[in-house]
């Protein structure tokens, strides 16, 4: 056998040629690919309208249901609030519905809080147990020892739980709102007399000063603010709003605005007053607005001959740009320039958000900021502040008929609230969790948690834990074995908003009232009952008397009745059909000039001099609110004008050198949805990290402490300590460290030391006006783990 050279060559070339030819033949080019025509996917598919409840705003949603399962949630195209768009948390709703850790049946703890032994129950049995506990309370005449604490955004839950508490005889219906909301509402309450956060007519605003507010990064109007941002920038031919972001640290959003102004923590209001000073001294204020729609701008003489100081002289005297500059750290020239631009840039809006709302001086700071709007006449005009109208729902008020109930109802609330001339005043002596632990003013025997995980999501974690361990019977209406539910005696899963009939009014930003009808878009798991339906049943289990206050057969019936109040002119059937088919009812467009709707405070005007505060001054003083001016601390007239009060910080000094900045992002909000893997995996802007709780720390400081990126460190305050991972950041101030709500999941960290949330670091400080939580005044120390 001889190998011929030629044979070799032939064979070799033939092989190569064949290979090439084969390749060329198999070539996939643009025309060879068969572009399939969409044949559709077999299976039933439908679109259902409902309301999103991932935050309290109330966007309309369009849910895509395929073969009985929810595969996508989009914005409702016709809904006036979100207009077909939807924020990242809304998009993650299917993950909430199909969370692998969801509980599907009630559980009762037959063991102890240290050593749990969860046993399955039916819903009937669970309600029987709860009814039994409540009957015990009635037997002991201690109905007021029941606390119903709710974190639900649902109007229906709110109505039913409040009614339940009223008819049962406990004043302790505690509705927990999103962080910052209370302070924003109080600021409006003091100046306008209406207690809801300010809304803005974004579309027409030409100059926007954002005081510590970022679109979408909170639960306060995320969608409208983001939508408004787009419109303000490029949505109107020839006009582009100038946006100024005032904040304590440079964020990714700061890189999107025209000007970023750095301000010292808790001094936003001071800056606003400095700007007010310039506007007033340069006489750039809107005289007509002030004369027609405000009270207290100039010094006043009352009918009875007493005099009250006015805003004008007060500001001119106390808040010169120089004085403000040293408080805020903002240069003199900047304050003057901002003031001039603001006054000239009409329609101009000053909007305060999470930034000022997070400190102990939140309410007064937000008042100071809002005063700027009044100064330039940006209230109740296109492009200015508007007041959200609530839909008029038909709600019967329950009136307790039994004298015993009346006695219980009159007991002081466990959270120390005193209602005083329409101004809710709280004691700052101690926050709610310590009061529960110390049984002040009386011990609590039954605690109902509804969609609320205080241990993970509220300040004062450690005390909440103690409280939950101490209270003899805790029932948690929750779908998960979360940090608080773990310490409960009974857990009743109440389903998600996609599985129940519900009602939700839009809480801000449309101006005109909008009411959304939520519906079950899929079959809920066998037997599962939502909160309101549960409470309806419970009320009926409590006996005929209580049952008589809850005559509805189902929540759907109740909703139908409530909705009948929406529009007097429409027939009930017609109204319900509209609601049913569209998923919402709205009464647009917004009409300006309804003075009595916009100003419910004294004189139906904007109150520069806050009469409400004056009326409540005794309670305020008892609650711990002190005057900045007088030595005794007793409140004087100048305290009822907008003032900058220095923010309180916990444990200042060398022991706790860093100011902790806790903030939310569009993805994490205030941390409520940290259980959703779909959101945890999203990389936070500017940080290129996910899943892990990061501690943002200045580069230089990190070097001094010998920290490297991704290094685990303890972050400790006087209230607690948690584990975080270092992330060096040029934009953090040297004296601050930053942390994002919701990063890293409690109980799902590889390192068990990382299981607590940043709320563990926060003390229980609340604002006496309104009781909003302060989360901005904590100081911490950091060291290697």
């Amino acid at each position, binding site marked *: 056998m001889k190998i011929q050279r030629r044979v070799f060559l032939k064979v070799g070339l033939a092989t190569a040629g064949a290979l090439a030819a084969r390749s060329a033949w198999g070539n996939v080019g643009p025309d060879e690919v068969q572009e399939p025509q*969409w044949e559709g996917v077999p299976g039933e598919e439908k679109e259902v309208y409902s309301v999103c409840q991932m935050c309290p705003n109330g966007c309309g949603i369009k849910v895509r249901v395929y073969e009985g399962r929810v595969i996508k949630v989009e914005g409702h195209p016709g809904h006036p609030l979100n207009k077909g768009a939807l924020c990242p948390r809304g998009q993650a709703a299917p993950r909430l519905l199909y969370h692998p850790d969801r509980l599907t049946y009630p559980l009762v703890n037959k063991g102890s809080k240290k050593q749990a032994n969860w046993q399955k129950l039916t819903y009937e049995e669970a309600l029987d147990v709860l009814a039994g506990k409540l009957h015990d309370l009635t037997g002991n005449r201690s109905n007021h020892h029941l606390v119903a604490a709710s974190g639900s955004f649902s109007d229906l839950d709110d109505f039913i739980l409040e009614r339940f508490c009223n008819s049962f005889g406990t004043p302790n219906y505690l509705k927990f709102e999103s962080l910052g909301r209370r302070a924003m509402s109080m600021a409006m309450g003091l100046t306008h007399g209406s207690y809801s956060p300010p809304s803005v007519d974004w579309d027409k605003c030409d100059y926007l000063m954002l005081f510590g507010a970022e679109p979408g990064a909170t639960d306060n109007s995320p969608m409208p603010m983001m939508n408004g941002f787009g419109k303000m*920038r490029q949505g109107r031919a020839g006009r582009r709003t100038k946006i100024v972001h005032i904040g304590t640290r440079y964020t990714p959003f700061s890189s999107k605005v025209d000007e970023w102004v750095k301000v010292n923590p808790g001094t936003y209001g001071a800056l606003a007053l400095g700007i007010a000073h310039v506007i007033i001294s340069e006489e750039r204020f809107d005289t007509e607005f002030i004369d027609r729609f405000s009270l207290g701008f100039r010094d006043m003489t009352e009918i009875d001959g007493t005099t009250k100081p006015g805003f004008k002289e007060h500001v001119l005297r106390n808040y010169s740009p120089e004085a403000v500059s040293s408080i805020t750290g903002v240069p003199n020239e900047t304050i003057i320039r901002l003031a001039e631009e603001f006054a000239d840039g009409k329609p101009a809006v000053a909007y305060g958000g999470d930034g000022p709302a997070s400190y102990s001086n939140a309410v007064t700071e937000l008042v100071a900021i809002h005063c700027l709007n009044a100064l330039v006449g940006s209230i109740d005009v296109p492009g200015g502040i508007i007041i959200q109208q609530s839909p008029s729902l038909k709600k019967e008020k329950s009136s307790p008929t039994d004298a015993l109930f009346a006695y219980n109802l009159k007991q002081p609330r466990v959270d120390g609230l005193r209602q005083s001339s329409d101004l809710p005043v709280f004691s700052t002596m101690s926050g709610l969790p310590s009061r529960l632990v110390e049984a002040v003013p009386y011990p609590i025997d039954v605690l109902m948690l509804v969609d609320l995980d205080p241990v993970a999501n509220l300040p004062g974690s450690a005390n909440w834990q103690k409280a939950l361990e101490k209270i003899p019977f805790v029932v948690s209406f929750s779908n998960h074995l979360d940090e608080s539910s773990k310490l409960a005696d009974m857990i009743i899963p109440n389903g998600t908003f996609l599985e129940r009939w519900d009602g939700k009014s839009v809480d801000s930003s449309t101006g005109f009232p909008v009411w959304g009808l939520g519906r079950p878009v899929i079959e809920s798991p066998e037997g599962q009952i939502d909160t309101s339906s549960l409470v309806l049943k419970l009320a009926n289990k409590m006996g005929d008397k209580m049952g008589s206050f809850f005559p509805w057969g189902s929540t759907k019936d109740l909703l139908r009745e409530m909705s009948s109040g929406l529009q007097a002119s429409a027939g009930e059937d017609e109204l319900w059909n509209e609601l049913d088919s569209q998923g919402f009812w709205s009464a647009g467009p917004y009409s300006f000039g309804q003075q009595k709707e916009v100003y419910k405070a004294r004189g139906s005007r904007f109150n520069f001099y806050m009469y409400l505060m004056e009326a409540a001054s005794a309670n305020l003083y008892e609650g711990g609110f002190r005057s900045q001016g007088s030595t005794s601390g007793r409140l004087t007239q100048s305290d009822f004008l907008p003032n900058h009060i220095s923010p309180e910080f916990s444990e200042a000094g060398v022991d706790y050198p860093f100011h902790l900045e806790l903030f939310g992002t569009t993805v994490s909000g205030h941390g409520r949805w940290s259980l959703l893997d779909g959101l*945890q*995996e999203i990389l936070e802007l500017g940080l290129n990290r*996910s*899943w892990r709780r990061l501690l943002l720390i200045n580069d230089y400081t990190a070097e001094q402490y010998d920290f490297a990126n991704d290094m685990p460190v303890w972050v400790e305050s006087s209230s607690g300590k948690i584990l975080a991972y270092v992330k060096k950041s040029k934009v953090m101030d040297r004296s601050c460290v930053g942390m994002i709500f919701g990063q890293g999941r409690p109980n799902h960290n590889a390192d068990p030391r990382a299981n607590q949330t940043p709320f563990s670091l926060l003390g229980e400080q609340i604002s006496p006006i309104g009781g909003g939580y302060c989360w901005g005044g904590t100081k911490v120390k950091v060291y290697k783990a």
Partner: protein
Amino acid sequence: MARWGMVIDLDRCTGCQACVVACRQENNIPEVGPEQAAMGRGIYWMQLIEEKEAAHEDAHIAYLPRPCMHCDNPLCVKVCPVGATYKNSEGLVGQVYARCIGCRYCTTACPYTARYFNWYKPEWKPEEKKYLSPDVSLRPKGVVEKCSFCVHRIRKARRKAKDENRELVDGDVVPACGETCPSKAIFFGDLDDPNSEVSKLAKSRRAFRLEDHLGTGPKVIYLREGEWSE
């Protein structure tokens, strides 16, 4: 035949990442979990990327949403050894999961790093499988994937138009990211249709494309921040 393109107005974008989350839900993108994500193996067909200017003390961090550019001259298609990625007649750069051998040449060739790889088998717990969409195939381990300009929505819209006996019009096709964007910063349409919104916006003075000088011909056009312009 259309030539699909996208316009992203950076002046409207707030960086909220709704587009990122919506895309993941629409396209059955799996989570990889904390350890894998920390290694840099997360899959984000739409991702917000930063433009850092390190020189500035304050670290100017502008960001832009970056899907696949669906280049007119795609470098990934050039290098794929098996033709698992191709450019179709409507300008979309497609990915054939069934043919991909996972060599990752396309991922290294893409100048936008817009392609992702399944390092492990994507997994969903039984309960989580319920939110998977039937419109988009699940990928096996070992193949490359990337933004498809929601090609399933394009096909659905085309089918719907056909059933209704009409042509596709501007606005019929909306990708998941564009539908959800709260500030309406994402536009999508036919670049060859002179009346489409994307065509008009593409001519804006504010328009630019990423890494344009490379000759890739990306069909995602950005509008930079700045004064209002048509």
